[in-house]
């Protein structure tokens, strides 16, 4: 089971802050494809990957990063701290 987290407008578009999913996706990109195929709200949230960032187990990662063994994958827009 993989914990998938959403923040900021990604969270608002998906409609929930986190969910546990069963997946066989090998990379983040595969996971995104899988999520996109679910429902319109996911397709909308993931429509422009250039506007998104991803973290695997709380470290920034890339779209082609492998997610095997990961406990947690988070999607969010570019950060605006400070």
């Amino acid at each position, binding site marked *: 089971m993989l914990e998938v987290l959403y923040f900021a407008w990604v969270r608002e578009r998906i409609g929930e802050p986190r969910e546990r999913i069963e997946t066989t996706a090998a990379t983040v990109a595969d996971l995104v494809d899988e999520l996109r195929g679910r429902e319109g709200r996911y397709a909308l949230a993931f429509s422009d990957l250039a506007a998104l960032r991803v973290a695997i187990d709380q470290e920034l990662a890339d779209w082609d990063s492998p997610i095997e063994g990961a406990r947690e994958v988070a999607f969010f*827009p570019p*950060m605006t701290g400070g």
Partner: protein
Amino acid sequence: MRVRVQCEPFDLAAELEGFGAEGDVGAQVTFTGIVRATGGLTRMEIEHYPGMTARAIEKIATEAVSRWALDDCLVVHRYGTLAPGDQIMMVATASRHRAAAFEAAEFLMDYLKSRAPFWKKEYGADGAAWVEARDEDEDALSRW
């Protein structure tokens, strides 16, 4: 080195109590970020990624301490609901020399801006909108 992520307000003076006291510090720089009332903003909501935030900031602060041989380094960042005039966050650096203290503080700010998992939403007369990251903020990282 001290990093704190909190909802509560902070007090700059209290945070600086004993700051850098252990080194032979000649220069201390602080930066405080404050909510602006620009464009009729009435409040700001800051969301963060609890499991990741403190760790991400610690990583940035550790990098600053080693690159500039800082005697001390402090980051406090708030989340939750803030009003215009409220303090959002602060950094402080202590070093032997002023150039190091200034550079390290600017480095911390540049990285916190784009690499610490916070997202700001502004509420005003025209509704609400997420603050967008600007290209300049990402570009600023390349100077370090």
